[in-house]
């Protein structure tokens, strides 16, 4: 639709402020994140051949590493494909449920993401390992008992555990995609074809890009995760990078080894970025066309399959922990002893995670709003170069964000240490390094992309009519941008804050390297407890931390609701989602 207004912001009185706003985000992003990381990687780029020669010293070694890389890629691809299949099944099952049941169950379906993958893998070993309850049950019932461990300790078994952990991401992507086709289109199509065929058409046709994007996100996550693979005795490529650090203390070699993985991650990110740019994003508040109900038999099948997926993915870890916690005594012991000791860790970690979430959402809101604002201004402009420039700006920021997403946490942390603790550049950086700010900065680097993409996705469906009406109303560009975006971004911002908070609380590898001396981190304490506490206390601790994370996430949602209420009072005329 052509905009009603033809006045471009470049000539508006607010353009200086808009320019300042527009440049703040890239400047902060560059100074805090890109410059430190770039310096570290450029150090490697000065002698890439030497690093590569160190990483791949002989033909035999090259062949061995290629084999491990192939296995790692197969694992990530298998995990992503299986996760997508589970996500589609869960979506279909939820669609077959009544609204009330659906509302009660969605939190349970999303629960696997609240449990660290490492914990899930342990629960699966306790289930299908050689001494797991499933294996022992098979033994008791006179069935062959070798298959559960054989399956679990295999590449498909590992992919299965990863898929069960990450499937909520695929499920959410399918759900978001399902809201994009308009009601009229879906209703018309439903009169022309049976529901099953329409579903196939929508999934295989309309949602193809959404499914591909979901696959790529889970693929990248599986590629970076090595805790599950190591516990299930599969050697993956990331451990080779860790070996270069831990055995040889040779960062250039580690960078050389990172190269193939980073190249694949970046390629996947580039495809993901392209897909995200092309997707027709839904509005959070917009009711898309309701998909027609499937035939009763199909509904029953999906309901059974979906219930099985949700029960297995959330029920196995939680059920295992509940069974092993062995009653209230363990919880009391956790609360009275180790957990009481962990209160400080919890407080600091929660504060650091909260600071990370606020910073990530704040920066992402600024960046995505300005990037999108620039694009919408450029749309109104008659100058082609302006449109191209802003498109380039948008695409570059998005690509850089996605590139960050593909970096291992330890490498990010090492890069930050190398930059911020460098004595050559004086006091301010060193003061920052000595403060407790390094931990939130590291987490921000790792998780800003998630917040950015979430908010940017919401802005993709900014009504052209609203923009033009606000423009006609005479608001200056910066004010107009906030009037339009702030209410619109509230829900996705809350969602992003919850996700970043949860991930920051669970992160371990960067935390070991970046936590300031004396600064407690819950993840280190939790993993120590995981290794050294008795089974029942570990189980109780897992449940307590699950409850803590859920409460923390609920707290953020609550704070967001209060803020939203307050904002609505301050901005009573704005269209909140």
């Amino acid at each position: 639709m052509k905009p009603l207004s033809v006045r471009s912001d470049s000539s508006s009185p607010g353009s200086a402020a808009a320019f300042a706003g527009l440049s703040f985000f890239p400047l902060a992003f560059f100074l805090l994140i890109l410059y430190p990381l770039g310096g570290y990687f450029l150090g490697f780029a000065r002698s890439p051949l030497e690093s590569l020669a160190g990483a791949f010293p002989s033909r035999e070694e090259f062949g061995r590493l290629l084999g491990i890389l192939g296995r790692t890629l197969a694992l990530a691809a298998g995990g992503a494909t299986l996760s997508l299949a589970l996500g589609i099944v869960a979506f279909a099952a939820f669609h077959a449920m009544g609204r009330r049941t659906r509302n009660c169950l969605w939190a349970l379906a999303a629960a696997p993401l609240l449990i660290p993958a490492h914990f899930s893998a342990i629960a699966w070993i306790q289930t299908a390992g050689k001494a797991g309850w499933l294996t022992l049950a098979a033994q008791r019932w006179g069935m062959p008992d070798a298959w559960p461990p054989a399956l679990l300790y295999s590449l498909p078994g590992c992919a299965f555990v990863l898929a069960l952990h990450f499937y909520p991401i695929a499920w959410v992507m399918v759900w978001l995609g399902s809201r994009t086709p308009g009601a009229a289109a879906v209703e018309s199509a439903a009169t022309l074809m049976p529901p099953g065929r329409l579903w196939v058409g929508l999934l295989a046709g309309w949602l193809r890009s959404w499914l591909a994007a979901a696959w790529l996100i889970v693929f990248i996550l599986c590629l970076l995760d090595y805790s599950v693979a190591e516990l299930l005795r599969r050697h993956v490529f990331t451990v080779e990078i860790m070996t270069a650090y831990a055995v040889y203390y040779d960062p250039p070699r580690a960078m050389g080894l990172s190269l193939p993985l980073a190249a694949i991650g970046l390629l996947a990110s580039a495809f993901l970025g392209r897909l995200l740019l092309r997707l027709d994003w839904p509005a959070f508040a917009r009711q898309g066309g309701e998909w027609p109900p499937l035939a009763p038999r199909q509904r029953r099948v999906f309901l059974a399959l979906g219930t099985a997926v949700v029960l297995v993915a959330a029920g196995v870890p939680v059920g295992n922990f509940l069974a092993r916690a062995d009653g209230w005594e363990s919880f009391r012991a956790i609360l009275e002893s180790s957990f009481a000791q962990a209160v400080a860790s919890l407080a600091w970690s929660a504060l650091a995670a909260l600071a990370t979430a606020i910073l990530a959402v704040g920066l992402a809101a600024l960046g995505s709003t300005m990037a999108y604002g620039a694009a919408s201004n450029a749309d109104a402009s008659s100058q082609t170069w302006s449109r191209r420039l802003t498109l380039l700006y948008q695409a570059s920021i998005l690509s850089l964000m996605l590139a960050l997403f593909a970096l291992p946490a330890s490498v990010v942390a090492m890069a930050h240490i190398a930059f911020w603790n460098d004595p050559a550049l004086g006091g301010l950086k060193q003061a920052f390094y000595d403060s407790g700010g390094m931990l939130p900065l590291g987490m921000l680097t790792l998780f800003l992309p998630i917040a950015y993409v979430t908010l940017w996705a919401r802005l993709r469906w900014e009504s052209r009519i609203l923009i033009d009406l606000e423009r006609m109303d005479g608001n200056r560009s910066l004010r107009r941008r906030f009037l339009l975006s702030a209410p619109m971004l509230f829900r996705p911002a809350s969602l992003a804050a919850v996700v970043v908070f949860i991930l920051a609380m669970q992160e371990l590898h960067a935390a070991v390297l970046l936590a300031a001396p004396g600064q407690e981190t819950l993840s280190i304490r939790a993993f120590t407890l995981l290794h050294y506490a008795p089974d029942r206390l570990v189980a109780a601790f897992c449940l307590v931390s699950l409850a803590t994370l859920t409460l923390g996430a609920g707290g953020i949602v609550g704070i967001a609701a209060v803020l939203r209420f307050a904002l609505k009072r301050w901005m009573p005329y704005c269209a909140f989602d």
Partner: protein
Amino acid sequence: MEKKGVGSSVKAPHRRQTPAPAGNGRLPFGWIARLTAVCVWLVACGGDSVDQGNVERRQEVVIYTALDQLYSEPILEGFEEKTGIRVRAVYDSEAAKTVGLVNRIIAERERPRCDVFWNNEVLRTLALKDKGLLERFAPDNARQIPTAYKDPEGYWTGFAARARVLAYNTDRLTREDLPDDILGLADEKWRGRVGMAYPLFGSTSTHAAALWALWGESRAHRFFEDLKKNDVAILDGNMTAARAVADGELDLCLTDTDDAHLLRSEGKPIDWVLLDHDGEGALLFPNTLALIQNGPNPEAGRRLIEYLLSPEVEAALAASQSAQVPLRPNVEAPPKVEEMARGDFLEVDFAEAASHIEESADFLKTLFSKP
């Protein structure tokens, strides 16, 4: 005319009416900025400057410790109580695959932030010595420590050791069933029943490097190749290996005393024996303490090292669930630890073992990363 935004005019008609405006229609940016600033400031205060120079600040010392927080934290609290010096610790985690503290010290070499490195084994400390990151210090409390467990040049001091042991599931095996020697693990009888941690990390890599130093390259190669042929299970860590035995996943594993002892004290069906190497004894490897060169609080660092080398700390570690063997004589220890301390132990030249660590890692990663 009252200025009115247009967003509401295109919103769905069922939208709830908002209350009368309390504000001026502008976003409360000030409040949002203040909230963010308070959060960031609170976090930033979590690790105040570790620099010297502020005389009014309470004296402090920074320690990076690879010994688990569970065991090291109470001991560091004891130092704080005794001296009034604030200890600011950074702990490692077994799950971090040791890309942790040693790499952090190396990365901080231009401007060290750590005063004392408390490692739970020897070879990584030697790596720091080789890189010139340690400062010489001969603590008074180290005089009773045997010379085999101290650096001859005074860069590090060992104390409170752990041993490499063969842990077994007591529901499935008795002590008589066990092989007499580490070489017996390659016997056909144990096919698919033995586990060990990935030998590139932690104390398993120390053990491997010690075998290279003790036996030479070809014999060490043969031993690990035989283990591989015998379907040894490679696990995530020593505790994971011990748990696999205690849970009945495996019958035997190579692990450390602290891991096996902890599970035994939980009542799990697990026990262990010292692992003999060709009649020469078992491997005993100490915790090590080193002063970091150009650390921010060297004097407090020296005091902390003296404290950690005291007999009381060795006794506390012996009595803890990690059951560490005191290296100096006449330190009170529980019976199981005393029994262990009476065992035969290998005379390992740790410096020589350290010189083999890359060579052993090159071989072992090739051997064990094959499917």
